[in-house]
């Protein structure tokens, strides 16, 4: 709010007015105090109050958004002004300006600190941190003659440590409960007894996805070995597996 504004040429019988940018009502108040060359500890409240309102009106004329914050202070200033006009009954009565003065003094400190930071900010604009590479020490080649059992074991330990680091063990893999060979034998039994075994229905009704995959692999393996044939009339239709009459190879029947 309150950026420098000027009227455009075509609607300017009045001279163009430029308002300095204010950070808010306190900033405007400090500006007025400085323009009047008075101390914030002894503000001529009537003058400042009138000037504050006049500035607000000019800001409004210039179509600047007058934030509620300015209006709050405008009202507060008016209240202080009217209290100043009343005769004060006793000496120990508090100066109506006291709180405003304290706020202005605090804000002046904030501005001073901000100016210090602005100076530091400016001074350090060009300073950048470094990005220097770490040079690796080449692992030394060991003469073969000197590689003994302990060196070998140490190397293996390193490998395992790295493996464990890179493969967190927190998620346990389920033990393999199904083997392809076991399913091959079972499927061979089924097609030997049944003319056409509905493999797809069988897969879809397995409770365990791993088991279903194992059955499918077993089916494919039997077809590859020429022990079985698979038939499907169309995509997604039932897959029937039939026996070709060739026996299951010995290495499959013997293991397990």
């Amino acid at each position, binding site marked *: 709010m309150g950026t420098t504004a000027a009227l455009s040429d075509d609607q300017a019988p009045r001279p163009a007015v430029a308002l300095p940018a204010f950070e808010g009502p306190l900033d405007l108040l400090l500006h007025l105090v400085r323009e009047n060359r008075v101390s914030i500890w002894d503000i001529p409240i009537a003058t400042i109050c009138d000037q504050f309102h006049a500035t607000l009106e000019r800001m409004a004329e210039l179509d600047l958004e007058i934030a509620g914050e300015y209006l709050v202070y405008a009202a507060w200033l008016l209240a202080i002004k009217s209290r100043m006009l009343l005769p004060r009954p006793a000496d120990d009565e508090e100066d109506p300006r006291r709180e405003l003065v304290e706020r202005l003094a605090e*804000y002046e400190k904030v501005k001073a600190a901000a100016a210090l930071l602005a100076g530091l900010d400016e001074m350090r604009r060009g*300073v950048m941190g470094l990005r220097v590479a770490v040079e690796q020490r080449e692992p030394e080649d060991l003469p073969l003659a000197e590689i003994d059992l302990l060196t070998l074991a140490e190397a293996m330990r390193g490998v395992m440590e790295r493996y464990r680091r890179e493969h967190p063990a927190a998620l346990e893999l389920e033990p393999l409960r199904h083997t392809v060979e076991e399913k091959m034998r079972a499927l061979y039994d089924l097609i030997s007894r049944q003319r056409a075994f509905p493999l797809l229905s069988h897969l879809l009704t397995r409770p365990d996805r791993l088991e279903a995959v194992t059955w499918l692999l077993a089916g494919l393996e039997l077809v590859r070995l020429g022990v079985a044939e698979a038939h499907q009339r169309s995509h997604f239709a039932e897959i029937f597996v039939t026996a070709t009459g060739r026996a299951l190879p010995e290495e499959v029947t013997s293991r397990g």
Partner: protein
Amino acid sequence: MAELESLAALCEALLAVAGEPVRVETLAEVAGMGTSAEDIEAALNLVGERHRQPGSGLMLERVGGGYRLATRPEHEGALRAFLGVQARSRLSQAALETLAIVAYRQPVTLPEINFLRGVNSAGVMRTLIERRLVRVAGRKQVVGTPLLYRTTSEFLTHFGIADLSELPDPEGPGEEPGGGLVAG
């Protein structure tokens, strides 16, 4: 002397790769074997001295609670052109005021800042947090438990301040407390 030089070399290497200010204690710890903070300070002195000689493009600075190696301000233009980065945008007056309040009064809440500045500073605060100059440091245990704000170590590095106790005094030297701040 040779030992001091080799400690200086190690310190320089550490600061060159750290990417952020490193505390003296951390340097001593990495150097190991009974290296004291005094040893490190002596070694860093040597590093700083070497970089004050002409021909060095770097400087040792004490910022953000530790030491770091950085480039010199006079190379800004060339470095920016080389890296293809734009000049750092300046902080607005509103941002500087809000940052000043956080820096000097931390931990501080947004209502306290609004009160001091006389304007709502929520938007400015968001910017400061995005720029990592200010962080949330919990909640104040009063009605409404407003968030508490503090400056970051990035703030210290940004402004070239070693630690918060080294923040410059905004009241300046030699001014009586509560004395007449005459405008002019």
